[in-house]
């Protein structure tokens, strides 16, 4: 208790502090006194919110230092500067270009070559903060008029991501859709400086590794290759992921040789091997025609090399179905 009191009075130096809001119920009148006194100080720079960094251990800090509490003054309106936003965006792109050039000099993916070649396992996506969620997009059949809902948020203790929602297979009443009911989570395509498309090179790995916790529903893992041709956006490689449900985490290992090819949502007779040198995105789709709530908790998604797995491609093409392939 004494420690809390000390922290409240000693460690936080603030400037533009409004009257205490609901977010800080623990602070008493002393905080309010400091807040009101700071508002009277003429040197306080306008347009800055009060919430940001913590200046540690300085009781007599300058009034222009910022508060650690996440409070925005209602009297101050954030300045929206179009020019500044554009300048910041351009600077960011040039900074990324500079990093790109430096990383290109160091080696593949910005690391020395021997490190890349000797790597046998790699975590590609993990969920440890809100910025990790920004790399994903969630979608459902709501875009075509359906009733499914899907959300993505951080799990407990910021150690996983929780994809949850409600699946509804009720077809949209638009006169042309016969069926519906899907929810998906797709990774964003990695972009470089000036929004250049990038791709993942997983050619030295042969298995996909997922640590998930589901509710017993079957999911589909979809991988898309990088493509510049428009029609190829409909092509993807898929495989099933059956979740167990229950409180224990599940480690799913799917060899890349098992992924089958589909175009426009239909599995094709002509099957092709998934080439791993230009992977664009990965996605999880739920479309099991079972209405109701669902959830999928994901810890991380990685790739690794399984030396015992020597299969190159699990499916073969039939000369009867695809004579063109055997000409």
């Amino acid at each position, binding site marked *: 208790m004494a420690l809390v009191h000390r922290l409240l009075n000693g460690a936080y130096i603030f400037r533009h502090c409004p009257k205490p809001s609901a977010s800080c119920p623990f602070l008493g009148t002393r905080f309010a006194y400091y807040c009101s006194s700071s508002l009277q100080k003429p040197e306080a720079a306008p347009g800055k919110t009060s919430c940001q960094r913590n200046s540690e251990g300085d009781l007599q800090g300058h009034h222009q230092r910022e508060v650690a509490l996440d409070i925005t003054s209602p009297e101050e309106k954030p300045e929206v500067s179009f020019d500044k936003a554009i300048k910041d965006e351009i600077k960011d792109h040039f900074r990324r270009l500079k990093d790109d050039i430096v990383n*290109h*000099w*160091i*080696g*593949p*993916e910005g690391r020395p*070559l*021997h490190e*890349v*070649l*000797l790597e046998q396992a790699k975590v590609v996506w993990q969920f440890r903060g809100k910025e990790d969620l920004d790399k994903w997009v969630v979608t459902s059949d709501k875009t075509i008029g359906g009733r499914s809902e899907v959300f993505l948020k951080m799990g407990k203790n910021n150690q996983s991501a929780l994809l949850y929602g409600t699946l509804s297979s009720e077809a949209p009443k638009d006169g042309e859709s016969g069926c519906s009911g899907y929810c998906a989570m797709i990774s964003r395509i990695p972009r470089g400086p000036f929004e250049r498309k990038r791709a993942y*090179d997983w*050619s*030295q790995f042969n298995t996909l590794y997922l640590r998930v916790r589901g509710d017993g529903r079957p999911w589909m893992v979809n991988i898309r*290759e990088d*493509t*510049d*041709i428009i029609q*190829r956006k409909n*092509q993807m490689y898929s495989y099933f992921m059956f979740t167990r449900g229950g409180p224990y985490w599940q480690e799913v290992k799917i060899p890349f040789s098992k992924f089958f*090819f589909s175009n426009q949502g239909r599995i094709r007779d*002509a099957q*092709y*091997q998934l*080439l791993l*040198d*230009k992977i664009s995105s990965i996605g999880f789709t739920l479309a099991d025609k079972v209405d109701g709530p669902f959830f999928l908790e994901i810890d991380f998604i990685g790739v690794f090399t399984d*030396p015992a797995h020597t299969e190159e491609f699990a499916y073969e093409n039939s000369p009867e179905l695809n004579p*063109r*392939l055997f*000409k």
Partner: protein
Amino acid sequence: MKPAILITITSTVVLGTMIVLFSSHWFMIWVGFEMNMLAIIPILMKKYNPRAMEASTKYFLTQATASMLLMLSIIINLLCSGHWTVSTIPNPVASTMITIALTMKLGLSPFHFWVPEVTQGISLSSGMILLTWQKIAPLSILYQISPSVNSNLLLMMAITSMLVGGWGGLNQTQLRKILAYSSITHMGWMAAIMVYNPTLAILNLTIYIMMTLGTFMLFMHSSSTTTLSLSYTWNKFPLMAPLILMLMLSLGGLPPLSGFIPKWMIIQELTKNDMIIMPTLMAITALLNLYFYTRLTYTTALTMFPATNNMKMKWQFETTKKTTLLAPLIVTSTMLLPLTPMLAALD
């Protein structure tokens, strides 16, 4: 592919190039280019998968654009000179456009973007044909029109190609892309000397083709498409490791290997023409290429990367792959330097 179809397509590719080589009529040259391009498409799509189709589409689009540009420049030349014969091109617009069309077909900078993408999307055997045989026809035309080519444009393209080829290949782990960037750089060297001594460009092309064919054949023999798979060569085919070492260093232009011949002769010719900065820049940019060749050599022959087994060498079954031309190609790619004094006749 059925043998009859393969023979037809291959002979069309060869015929198209021969027509370009032996014609003195601009229209026939254009026809030869078109035949060659259309016949190579099924060869690029030999492995029928979406990536190969995308690569073939990209190749077709760029080559068709270059052919359109070539036809337009031929017509402009016809309007200005009044004849279809391949000779000096009086009109600067026509000669510039022909240069641009041919450099687009060759994959010189700034029209090089298709080369790594197409090479990466096709099989090793198709890539071998793309990076060797397909260079002959455009270079032969450049050879014929070299007196009327815009030298500044060609030299700029040459130096940017060398820079792009060296820089782009730096952190590649895919072998086909490495060879694609190597091709861009070598085309740059050929373009640089084309204005001053076209015969040296042909010599460079000959030695480049021998080295690239040998490299591709070695990769096909071990079915290696990535640096990592090449680093297991010591375990699978120990004899290949020193061969790859020699070929890579020859591609990099190190003496006493054959790859040094064109670099030496080109730099000598450029300095004879009172150029100092250009050959210095070229020699420096060659170091970029040498860096990634040496890195390949390091991972293949100079270190033993951890393999998937605990044996000194994997059990070898009798290979069914034909290596008929491999031995003579490796010999010619590595041991021709002592014959260089004979090339003094080129002066």
